[in-house]
Structure formats: C-alpha cells, structure tokens
C-alpha cells in the first residue's frame, strides 16, 4: 500500500496549534507567512475556523488554513487569503519591455523597466505552504498545494477569479537581498529586516507610498540586483514548480521588496480546475482502464476533506466503498470532485 493513500488534507483545527508552532519554527524568516508566535498562531487558527464556518457572503477578509496529515500526524500546511491587500492596495512591480530605437545610430534595444502597480489588489492569494522535508519528493506537496484550488473552485463566490502567490526572492550568502539593496534601500536607508520592523504590522501598501512611482530602469541597477529580478529563493522551488505546472504565469509580476516572482493566473484556466470533474457516487460502481493518481475531495465547505486515489482516466462514477473514503470519511453528499494529478497536456499535433 502506497503511503500516498494515507494523506488527508483538512481545515486547520484549534488542536493543531502545537503542529503549527513546529511548522512556524521550521520555516525561515520571511519565507512562510506563519508567525513564530503562539498567540498570533492561535489567532490565525481562529480566523481560519471562522472563515470555514461563516455562512455569509465573503467579506474578503477571510484567511483559510489547511493542514496535511499522514495517519493523523500533521506534516504540512497551506492557506488561502481571500483578497490580497484587503482594506488596502497590494503592490507589485510589473515587468515591462519597451523597444527604444534610433535609425540614425543603428541601434534598437529592448529596455526592461519595472512598474509599480497594484494590479493584484483584491486577487485571491495562496499562502503558508509548508511540507516536512521528508515528504517533499512524493505526492504530498501536490495534494497540499492543488487541493486549495479545488476548494476555491467549489466555493468560487468567496474568492476572486484571479489567483496569485508570492514566492521568496534571492538573498546572498549574508542574507541580504540584492534587489532590496538596489531599490528599496534607496528610499529607506535601512535594510529590509529593519524596514519591516519600522513598518511593524502595517501593510506593504504603506511602504510602497515611499517608493517612486516612475519606472525602475533595470539597466541602472547593479548586476546582482538585475539578476535577482524574478529569481526564486531555492526554498521556494517546490511550491513554485507546482504552480508553474498549474499554468500560473511567472513572468509578469515580482515582489517590490525582494524581487521574487509573484505568479498569477485565472482560476478557470488552472490545470487542476480545468480538469476537475464531478463524480456521482453509486454503490458498486466500477472504473475500468489504467489507473492514475487523482485528487479527490468532498464538496462541503466546513468539513472539506481532500485525499489521493488511483482512478481510471475517464472515470464517470465512484463507489462509496472505494478505499479513498477510508481517509475522506463517509461521503457527505451524492458526489465528489476529482482532478487527475499527472494528466498529459492536450496536444494538437
């Protein structure tokens, strides 16, 4: 029996506090959005429980937190913030390229500039991804990251149709961000850690007010800073790769502070959502054909559960006796959602 069958994703619960503390301690500063502070973690859990429980129309303030457990032990977390920059603007730099040409000088150059924008204000953010190192290689990260997208698709009225996720940018051996040193620092005269301290609990929008609104001309930056534009901190490779495979665009936006890539995509075009199907539950249903790993999730909000199962490619219905329900629990409705994990790209030729 493959261990992937033992994985279950579910909303965080108050009892998960010790596990979250362990996760917060394990994640490097600034990489995860989980605070290393018991009270703030308790608050995060509470807010998540309220978000899952709330019957009201979405206010945009909600943050949803999931944990991944293997046979009851929490091994990872992932989250969703319903609306980026809620109560404020959410700033990014947008990469732009313009051609500057002079026929007389015989020169035509592609000029790279960074434009401060708040294009991503109000989009839904994927946050808080963490998986224990021992589980990085298997299917666990896939379930942890992608099941969120099915949750968003199921309860679309609570979220924006544009989804984004921030990823940590490059730092050098001394822990300094070359991008911050070349850009943000010129407007703060302090390093990023200091700036974060000064700004305290305030939003990034506040910091952005201190930054110039005219474009940053990339050729004017030191080479290390140019190189850092859109570059990923190695710690972010796993979650970044999964989102790239989902079809998120990684070329348009970067973080205004460390230059890390902020990916963005439309929900309905993301792979797991595009390929998601609803399977009717019918006792005794038999799927025929070669089996592939699928995400399987229930359709309830508060009791949302997601797990993995091997199912035939074109499966239309599922038996409530299927072993996936050993993890998911007795199916609460007449159907479940599934989405293939290793689907091949549709190809025309």
């Amino acid at each position: 029996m493959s261990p992937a069958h033992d994985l279950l994703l579910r909303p965080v619960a108050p009892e998960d506090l010790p596990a979250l503390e362990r996760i917060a301690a394990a994640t490097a500063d600034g990489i995860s959005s989980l605070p290393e502070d018991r009270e703030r973690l308790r608050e995060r859990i509470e807010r998540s429980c309220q978000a899952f429980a709330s019957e009201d129309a979405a206010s945009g303030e909600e943050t949803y937190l999931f944990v991944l457990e293997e046979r009851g032990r929490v091994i990872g977390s992932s989250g969703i913030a319903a609306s980026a920059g809620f109560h404020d603007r959410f700033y990014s730099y947008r990469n732009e390229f313009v051609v500057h040409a002079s026929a007389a000088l015989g020169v035509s150059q592609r000029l790279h500039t960074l434009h401060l924008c708040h294009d991503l204000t109000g989009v839904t953010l994927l946050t808080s991804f963490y998986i224990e190192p021992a589980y990085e290689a298997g299917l666990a990260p896939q379930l942890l990251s992608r099941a969120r997208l099915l949750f968003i698709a199921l309860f679309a009225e609570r979220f924006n149709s544009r989804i984004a996720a921030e990823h940590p940018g490059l730092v050098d051996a001394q822990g300094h961000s070359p991008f911050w040193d070349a850009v943000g620092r010129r407007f703060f005269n302090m390093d990023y850690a200091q700036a974060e301290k000064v700004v305290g609990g305030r939003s990034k929008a506040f910091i952005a007010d201190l930054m110039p609104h005219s474009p940053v001309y990339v050729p004017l930056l030191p080479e290390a800073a140019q190189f850092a534009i859109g570059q990923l901190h190695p710690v972010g490779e796993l979650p970044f790769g999964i989102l790239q495979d989902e079809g998120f665009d990684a070329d348009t936006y970067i973080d205004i502070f460390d230059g890390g890539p902020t990916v963005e995509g439309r929900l309905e075009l993301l792979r797991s959502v595009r390929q998601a199907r609803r399977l009717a539950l019918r006792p005794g249903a038999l799927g025929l054909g070669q089996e592939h790993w699928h995400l399987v999730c229930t359709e309830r909000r508060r009791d949302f559960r997601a797990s993995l199962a091997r199912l035939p490619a074109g499966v239309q219905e599922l038996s409530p006796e299927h072993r996936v329900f050993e993890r998911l629990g007795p199916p609460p409705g007449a159907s479940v959602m599934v989405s293939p994990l290793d689907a091949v790209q549709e190809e025309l030729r």
Partner: protein
Amino acid sequence: MSDVRYSLRAWTSADEAVCAQWRNQAGQPPAAPAPEEQALVLCDADGRPQACARLRPHLGLDIPRYSFHIGRAVHAAAELGLYHCQDTLLLGNDHTGEAELVDLACAPDCPQPQQALSALLEALLKPWLADPANRGRQLVVELAGWRRADGRSPFWDGLGRLFYPADPTPQRARWGEAWPAHLAALMPRQTLYLSFLAEPARQALGRAHEGAAPALQALATQGFAYSRHVRIDDGGPIWVLQASTRLG
C-alpha cells in the same frame, strides 16, 4: 567692463580658419553663423581675433533639443518618521524656441579670457535685451560637462553608456548638433532618480568642464544662472539669462 584695448566687429568668413583651433564653451570649434544668426568677433589692438560669440534666435525648431531637468521628489510617511528628498532627472525639450548663445570662445593665447568674453557678451546682449518683441524670454547656453584627465565623462559612463553601449565619439562627430536628439531616442523617457546613478556620475552632474571656466565666469557677470537643466550626454550644465531679470 569693456576695455578700450578691444574692438568689435561682425564675423567674416576669414574667421573660420583663424578660430579652427579654438574651443567654445561646449568644447567644440566655433562654426560660421547661419543667415539668421548674429556673430561678433572681438579683436585686440592689433586687429587679431581674441574671442567670438554667436546668438541664435530660436533653438530646437529643426532638430529637437533635449536636456534633463533636475527636479526633486519627496517621499514621506509622517507616521513613521520617514522623509526622503531625492533629486530626479527628466528628459525633455524645455528650452525649445528660446534664444541660444553658442560658440562662446576665445583664443588659446588670449591674455585675459574672462574679461574679453565679458566685453563680447555685453556687446552681444545689449541689442538682444533691448528688443523685447523679438528676443523671447530666455537666452540659453550649454556648457561642456566635466571629464576626467583621460577624457572620459563619468556622467556618460554612469548613464548614457547603459542605454547606448557603443563608443559615442564617432557618432558625436558624425551627427554634430543632432547627436543628442538621436541619443535621446534611446534614453529613459520617465523620471529617473539620481540615487540610481553611480556616485561618479552624480558628482559630475551639472559640473562644467575646466576649459569652460572663463566662459562660466563671464556668463555669471552678465546675469546668467544655472537653469537646473543639464546636457543629456555629458551632464554639462545649461545656464540661462532670464530676460525679465535683467529688465526688472
């Protein structure tokens, strides 16, 4: 200010050869005036040309004239006690249509260059200032930017070179006065923060080449002042005489 030892006359075609080795305030040899321009030559007691200057009624009407305007931008967050004031550069054609003073130059062996140039300027400016209807509102003069002993311009190295990577010397020679207009097509079009420039480029901004010192002093005597504009290739300062200031 004018000195009895000097005499003034209009430019003649013979002057071109005489002045070929001179360098004007912008570092170039003086050229013959166009028909609508007024050019004066100052000669010593022996009739030898000592200095020259030329007045162009309108600049930038054939070939667009570019400069950087030096501005300031404040970014402040009172609640955080953060306040930053930064100098900025913006590419523009701000002096288009104004009058221009060009080819302000004196002989390399001129005994009192500043005095000669002042006398010449005063003679050139008097009729210009006296003709408010035709003179426009400003008289503009561009000065050569500062260079290191090896002839390199730190301002070019810190800015222009990043947008036009080749050696500018042949292009400057080929295109003459049109060179900056072609260069401008490659330069940033929106506000630049000076703090993004390397320190040597910032130091060179608005600083005139040493060779332009007598011209600068003569210009100051006549009421010219730094306009907070610089040349786009070498960062040389642009000075102006406000017509209204003199008349006030």
